């Protein structure tokens, strides 16, 4: 970790917007941000496009600095938190018996900060295994009852700490395996927490067991902070804890990164392929350095399997880059990358082009390059990209890992297939260029869509889309899975998903529409589509079905709303293209549109077969 001497950090450095962000990016200097928190907060509040989220912190110990640090990291992610914080140790009471302030807050996320200080009873030496099982059950049900109550009352995601190990071991090493040991008891309790997480969609573990191990348990659990201030962890570790919570929250609200842009020379292999030749690259089991590059590639490949798109931006002749990627010891093959840019153009230009080709925003990228000059270029020229400070080769994996760019909360089938889907898209673009007439091209894709009311198996993906889509999104309303499930069951709503398949493969769920019935009229409160199916007439297939469903319910007019953001300019004329008439526009550019479906409606989709 780089330690910036505090005396050297003058205020002008802190005051620049860019630098504030840098200070809060991993690897950060915990001490510095704890000290500069007030001025950092002031700067961060100047950011545009902050989205407000209500966050309840239910603590089993002091949480004051945790809240302060969480606020900074969330602001840095574009989320302006409004907090509720329990009185000291009141987590259970507030959850079970309600608290007027908490209820009034209507939390979007609840974080429960408990620790092994909140375990009241441990196994006694004279207890038999049945008695210990019962104690385990009792301890667990205290928590489970609270989660059930919270989710029934607030219908929002819950983030729960697991337990860190105790800082002493009464039975020495056997404390881990003996049923009377506290390490054993905590391990079993944690397992029960994980089982609950596995069977509940909106419940997430904040793994302080791992964080404390990573930090050093003895330091983390220094009892000084408990005796003096009733903190369950040392104060210096609070930024690390808060960063982990912020990563879970930003992931829940669709602010994860989606892709990596990788350099080749001295990033994926040792040496410069153009100068040294493929045969002299350092890669493989023969040398320590070669092995480090191989493991790094394996890490990236494993990330790719989780849905992260890998791309190359290399200053090389294309043939040389491909020759390097075909090195027999490469773990990553040319096929593992979605897009490979190997040329002599500025990397900033290449990055923007890759983003466009993948219909992603540059802010969805992490840029990984061993060359500090290239990193600085991207930082200055392409805003929003996470520019990773790589550090030493042997630390590549761990620094990227701890940065939490891709923190997994919802893992859908879509994540598993993402690489294939983007690859198929590139093939479609190639096919398109062989057709003079665009409609002929669309017909050649032999598209089939399913446009139907929300189904429970698709809920995780629908929720993910409502939180991730920024560009093709008319109202940019975010929904949790629980809210969507309620809408699906409510007869006052028409809620449709759209799934699109073609001759190249299945795109999965790509469109979501929610309409609220108001008498004889339908208000479209949400309309979004994944940018990977732009210009395929899917929006017309959706509208046709929406109109059909509306007419069946006796609805005579449909109202559309467009709320501009910095990212959704591409749908400004959406309703106009759909044949709606503009009925109002305010100073901020918010527009309201209307379509009369009583007197007739002409279907607009002629290229996709729907629900057949």
């Amino acid at each position, binding site marked *: 970790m780089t330690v910036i001497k505090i005396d050297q950090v003058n205020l002008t450095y802190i005051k620049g917007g860019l630098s504030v962000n840098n200070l809060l990016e991993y690897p950060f200097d915990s001490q510095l941000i*704890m000290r500069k928190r007030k001025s950092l907060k002031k700067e961060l509040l100047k950011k545009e496009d902050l989205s407000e989220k209500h966050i309840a912190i239910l603590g089993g110990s002091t949480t004051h600095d945790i809240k302060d640090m969480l606020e900074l990291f969330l602001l840095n992610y574009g989320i302006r938190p409004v907090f509720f914080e329990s009185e000291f140790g009141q987590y259970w009471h507030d959850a079970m018996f309600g608290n007027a302030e908490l209820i009034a807050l209507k939390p979007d996320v609840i974080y429960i900060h408990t620790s092994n200080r909140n375990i009241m009873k441990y196994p006694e030496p004279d207890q038999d295994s049945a008695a210990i099982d019962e104690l385990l059950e009792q301890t667990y049900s205290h928590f489970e009852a609270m989660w059930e109550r919270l989710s029934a009352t607030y219908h929002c995601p819950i983030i729960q700490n697991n337990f860190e190990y105790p800082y002493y071991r009464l039975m020495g090493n056997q404390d881990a395996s003996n049923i009377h040991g506290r390490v054993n008891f905590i391990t079993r309790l944690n397992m029960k927490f994980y089982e609950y997480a596995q069977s509940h969609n909106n419940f997430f573990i904040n793994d302080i067991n791992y964080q404390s191990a990573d930090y050093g348990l003895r330091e983390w659990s220094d009892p000084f902070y408990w005796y003096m201030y009733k903190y369950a962890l040392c104060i210096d570790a609070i930024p690390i804890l808060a960063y982990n919570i912020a990563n879970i929250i930003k992931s829940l609200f669709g602010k994860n990164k989606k892709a990596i842009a990788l350099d080749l020379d001295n990033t994926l292999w040792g040496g410069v392929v153009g100068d040294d030749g493929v045969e002299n690259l350092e890669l493989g089991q023969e040398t320590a350095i070669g092995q480090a590059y191989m493991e790094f590639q394996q890490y990236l490949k494993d990330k790719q399997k989780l849905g992260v798109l890998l791309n190359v931006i290399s200053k090389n002749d294309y043939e040389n880059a491909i020759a390097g990627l075909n090195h027999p010891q490469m773990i990553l093959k040319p096929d593992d990358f979605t897009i490979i840019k190997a040329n002599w153009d500025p990397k900033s230009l290449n990055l923007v082009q890759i983003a466009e080709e993948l219909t992603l925003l540059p802010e969805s990228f992490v840029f990984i390059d061993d060359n500090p000059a290239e990193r600085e270029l991207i930082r200055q020229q392409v805003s929003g990209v996470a520019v990773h400070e790589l550090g030493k080769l042997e630390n590549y994996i761990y620094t990227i890992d701890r940065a939490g760019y891709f923190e997994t909360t919802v893992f859908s089938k879509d994540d598993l297939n993402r690489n294939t889907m983007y690859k198929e898209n590139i093939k479609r673009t190639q096919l398109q260029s062989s057709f003079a007439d665009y409609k002929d091209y669309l017909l050649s894709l032999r598209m089939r869509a399913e446009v139907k009311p929300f189904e429970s198996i698709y809920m995780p993906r629908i929720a993910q889309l409502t939180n991730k889509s920024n560009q093709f999104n008319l109202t940019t309303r975010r929904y949790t899975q629980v809210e969507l499930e309620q809408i699906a069951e409510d007869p006052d709503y028409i809620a449709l998903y759209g799934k699109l398949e073609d001759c190249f493969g299945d795109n999965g769920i790509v469109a979501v529409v929610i309409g609220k019935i108001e008498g004889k009229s339908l208000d479209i409160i949400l309309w979004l589509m994944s940018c990977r199916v732009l210009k395929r007439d899917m929006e017309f297939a959706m509208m046709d079905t929406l109109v059909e469903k509306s007419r069946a319910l006796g609805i005579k007019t449909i109202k559309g709303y467009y709320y501009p953001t910095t990212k959704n300019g591409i749908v400004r004329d959406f309703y106009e293209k759909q044949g709606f008439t503009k009925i109002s526009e305010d100073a901020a550019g918010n527009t309201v549109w209307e379509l009369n479906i009583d007197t007739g409606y002409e279907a607009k989709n002629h290229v996709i077969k729907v629900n057949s």
Partner: protein
Amino acid sequence: MSRVEILEKVTVIFRDLFDDDRLDIDDTTSAEDIEEWDSLMHINLITAVQSEFNIRFSMDDIYKMKNVGAMIDIIQKLLD
């Protein structure tokens, strides 16, 4: 390290934490003199001072810190 040098560094910490570039402190300054110096801020002061001088206070030390002067005495003792 001299008391003057320590006071200089402690002053920077105070200015950062209270986000006030003109804040001046001396040996007699205590929680009564700065409105925002509550028990929560006290924890942050202690932590920042520990990190700055790379020292660790004992619980006993903290109970003896009635004002900035007492704090500097203890820092000096721990640095020796």
